């Protein structure tokens, strides 16, 4: 009995870990492309497919059910694309529409199925929240295959993926086949989500996609490290969720994995250097102490207007200091203006605006006048 328990745990942990890895890889790109909701819409759109596959085949065999899920998930993405292209409805609203309509349809079909007198339907609702304990060796093998394909695509088409994510239009202008690559990535995302339905279910699968990428972005400055860290977070959450739910009785695997991921995201949003809330609060204090430059430039411009024949006529720092409010660091502002090429000092330490400085000041005046 103990060996059996161990065996189950090993399969579940391996499956959840692989799912976490693939989710981290693909989710990173979804997060960077502001497509986080796509995973949500896709997984919810899979539900009617699950129900329809059962209605047509009359069995709960995994393969036909997942094929049904993939088909309606895919149809969901097509409908989103159609809505965006053919109407003025924006992308996020189209995703929301597809998500709720498909999910509602799925729930209605599930209710209809459950009212049927035979007992064959029992257990279909596990796809809502997943049932990792039911994972089979074959499922894990399929996941390993998908993970390998995703890894291969990323390794071979790394620079193409980077352009697609950062600036798709530019990639197209270079003649790189952005459309085909986008299609491939979306297809892989559909497959990943469908595989995840057994483990974490329709409702929570989108968190699996979004959370590792969102957390990893906080800690990294390079795309390569972000994707790697995201995959690592996915693996760690998957495996530890599986182990935890095997130790604690009645703890469901999928929700546990998602809870762990949420914790990681929370810590990352707060604590990460450079991007975390805590770090940025400190940075904001430092920024407040930087010298204000605009008033000094405007004064320099006003002074130079008094010498229309000699625009480079220099002025003492002390003059500028008397013109400026007491809280302005005049020397600091002048240095900053010089760095920006807007002001210059001559050998005697007298200051004048440059041609660009004068133009910048005129622009500011015009902006004020337009307001």
């Amino acid at each position, binding site marked *: 009995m103990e060996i059996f328990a161990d065996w189950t745990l090993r399969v579940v942990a391996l499956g959840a870990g692989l799912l976490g890895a693939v989710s981290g890889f693909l989710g990173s790109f979804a997060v*960077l*492309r*502001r497509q986080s909701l796509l995973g949500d819409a896709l997984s919810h759109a899979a539900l009617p497919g699950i129900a329809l596959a059962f209605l047509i085949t009359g069995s709960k065999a995994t393969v036909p059910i997942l094929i049904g899920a993939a088909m309606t998930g895919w149809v969901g993405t097509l409908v989103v694309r159609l809505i965006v292209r*053919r*109407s*003025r409805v924006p992308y996020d609203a189209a995703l929301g529409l597809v998500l709720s309509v498909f999910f509602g349809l799925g729930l209605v079909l599930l209710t209809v199925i459950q009212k049927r007198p035979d007992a064959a339907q029992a257990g279909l609702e596990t796809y809502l929240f997943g049932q990792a304990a039911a994972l089979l060796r074959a499922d894990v093998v399929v996941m390993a295959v998908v993970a390998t394909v995703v890894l291969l695509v990323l390794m*071979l*088409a*790394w*620079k*193409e993926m*980077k*352009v697609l*994510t*950062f*600036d798709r*239009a*530019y*990639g*197209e*202008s*270079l*003649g*790189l086949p952005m459309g085909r690559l986008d299609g491939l990535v979306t297809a892989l995302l559909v497959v990943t989500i469908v595989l995840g339905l057994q483990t974490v279910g329709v409702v929570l699968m989108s968190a699996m996609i979004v959370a590792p990428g969102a957390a990893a*972005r906080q800690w*990294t*400055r*390079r*795309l390569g*490290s*972000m994707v790697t860290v995201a995959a690592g977070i996915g693996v760690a959450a998957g495996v530890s969720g599986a182990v935890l739910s095997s130790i604690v009785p009645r703890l469901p695997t999928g929700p546990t994995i998602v809870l762990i991921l949420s914790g990681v995201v929370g810590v990352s949003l707060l604590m990460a250097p450079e991007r975390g809330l805590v770090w940025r609060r400190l940075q904001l204090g430092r920024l407040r102490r930087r010298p204000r430059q605009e008033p000094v430039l405007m004064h320099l411009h006003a002074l130079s207007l008094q010498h229309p024949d000699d625009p480079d006529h220099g002025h003492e720092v002390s003059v500028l200091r008397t013109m400026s409010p007491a809280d302005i660091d005049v020397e600091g502002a002048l240095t900053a203006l010089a760095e*920006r*090429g*807007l002001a210059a000092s001559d050998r005697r330490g007298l200051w004048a605006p440059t041609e*660009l*400085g004068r*133009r*910048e000041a005129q622009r500011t005046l015009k902006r004020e006048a337009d307001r």
Partner: protein
Amino acid sequence: MDAGHVPAVEVEDLTVAYTGSPVLWDLDLQVASGTRTAIVGPNGAGKSTLIKAVMGLIEPVAGAVRIFGKPGLEVRGSIAYVPQRATLEWDFPTDVLDVVTMGTYGRLGWFRRPGAPESATAEAALEQVEMSSFAHRPIAQHSGGQQQRILLARALAQDAEIYLLDEPFQGVDAPTERAIVRVLDDLATAGRTVVVVHHDLQTVAEYFNHVALLNVRIIAAGPVATTFTEDNLRLTFGGRVGVLAARAGSV
């Protein structure tokens, strides 16, 4: 110039529409090789759309684009495109040099990764826009002007015959404006063709030698001296234009 007879960019009967109403209507435009052309027009005139259509980024309802006499889609990569910086998501995990290196991706082809020669090209391009010291800083940490120079450097790394820039002077600081103008000068010296969507009427005559006045159709196009007139501006911008034209004339 020997290539002078074949226009660098030739747009013929181009019509583009987004969900129904036409943005560009039956538009003809020729850009001679080696010229510096400003595309000028009011908001919603279709300036960016024209650039995107020339790049083949949007499918026209009708019309054709030829680049040095060849269909536009065949010679992709020979035109360097500088998009409006505001259309990009700058919170992307990479550094400046990496973005500039993207300019070399078209030459590299599938599966090949950029190496030392590509990095050298990118560094030279960064030098041209005076951003060398920022090469290894994350792109998220830059001002609008610096972002504009990064995108310009990426286009320079492409080493293209034709450069299409969409509003490069929009909201940039003084050193950036200066750097962009110098790059435009360098490109002109090298005999490259430059087309810029431009909104500042006051600097058109200073920065460009050709102008195309656009408002859904081409109102007028040709050398700045003969085309950039008050009458043509009024036709392009409508009633409000007296002020603008007067200001442009006074510079």
